[in-house]
């Protein structure tokens, strides 16, 4: 049991990295990766949101959609519930712990309906994960996202200081770096799990 959970974390965080091998959540991956600090905050927010949302999505699926044979509705129901949930968490944090709210504040609404968040919930259903496995998979995926975005932010900080040929300046060099990272992450695919 325990080894399989560790396996899930490694698989979701590294082998099937959400950004670099599944290509989900690219918008925020490229958008908020200019500084390591900001991307770490976003990563924390993503971990928070994905872990909670995969738990809720799993409960919703097992206790509502599956018994009613309405599993084809999972996408729209997940969107509804996750969006509400994140909004609620935001309000809750604003009231109870302004410090956390300030750190995550502007990033929470940003990732409300991020495709990575929804993607995890849907993949969990597809893979037939139970509650614990879903939460662990969600957590692992989010950690993978955080690793990827912090790495890219580090690369971009160094790119800013180096002289890039004019045609590659800006977005092209970032996309190239992301592509090289994706190739590097393919190496994890050979892990004999």
């Amino acid at each position: 049991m325990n080894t399989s959970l560790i396996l899930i974390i490694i698989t979701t965080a590294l082998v099937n990295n959400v950004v670099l091998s599944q290509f989900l959540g690219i918008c925020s991956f490229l958008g908020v990766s200019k500084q390591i600090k900001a991307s770490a905050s976003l990563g924390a927010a993503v971990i928070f949101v994905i872990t909670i949302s995969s738990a809720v999505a799993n409960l919703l699926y097992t206790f509502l959609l599956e018994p009613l044979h309405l599993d084809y509705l999972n996408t729209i129901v997940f969107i509804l519930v996750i969006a509400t949930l994140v909004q609620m968490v935001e309000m809750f944090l604003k009231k109870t712990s302004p410090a956390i709210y300030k750190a995550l504040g502007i990033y929470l609404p940003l990732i409300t309906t991020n495709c990575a968040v929804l993607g995890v919930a849907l993949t969990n259903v597809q893979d037939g994960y139970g509650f614990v496995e879903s939460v662990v998979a969600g957590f692992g995926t989010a950690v993978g996202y955080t690793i990827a975005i912090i790495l890219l932010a580090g690369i971009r900080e160094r790119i800013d200081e180096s002289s890039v040929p004019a045609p590659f300046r800006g977005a092209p060099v970032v996309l190239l770096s992301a592509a090289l990272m994706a190739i590097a992450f393919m190496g994890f695919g050979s892990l004999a799990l």
Partner: protein
Amino acid sequence: MQAIITATVLVGAIGLLMGLLLITVDKKFKVEVDEKELAVREYLPGNNCGACGYAGCDAMASAIVHEEAPVNGCPVGGAAVAEKIAHIMGVDAEETEKMVAFVKCSGDCENAAARAHYVGITDCASAVASGLSPWTCDYGCIGFGTCASVCPFDAISVHNGVASVDRDKCRACGKCVAACPKHLIEILPDKSKYAVRCSNRDRGIAVKKVCSAGCIACKLCEKQCESDAVHVENNVSHIDYAKCVSCGKCAEKCPVKVIKQRA
């Protein structure tokens, strides 16, 4: 048919439930926000562009209310928004000092020495990048009007090879400051009467060779100033407007008349 009804009812019910839940949570966890903040936020444009330097309009509203940001800090809203916010904050909008952009160069076609006839893209940044400025002065206005083209208020025009700013139209948004490849444009208080119209950081003799109107860094202005506002740094005179009282003594003494009374 049955399936459609169940699906619609289920999604509708979940939506309704979530809506109600949000309303209750919102009421229960309501954070008291300063009424002023809400009022200020109401007048801000609300497109969260971040041009003010804060993370969106909410953050800007909060900063204005806490007096960390000026009431006219929103470059998008401009004077109209500033006035309304000033009204909420109980500050007179007139009190907020009007700032204008100013081009620190007087190297027009008569004063500055031409280097060559420039044929190419008539854009200042391109000219600088190619190293083929039409003027011999390495610091002066190129005169292709990149600043004029970025000005959203149509306040900048190029006369006789030098850009100049229309003080009535300028809103001090700072776009020209960022656009000028020679970093010649400075935002200064509108009420200030005198300004140094040169940015050449070379020594006097070198300046004389390229422009008859350039600052030769003789420091006469510095000696004349009674309020310690004028200083020569990097071979060019600079006025500190926080200290300047617009007495005009520096302009009077300036041998090259580069410190001028502004029109």
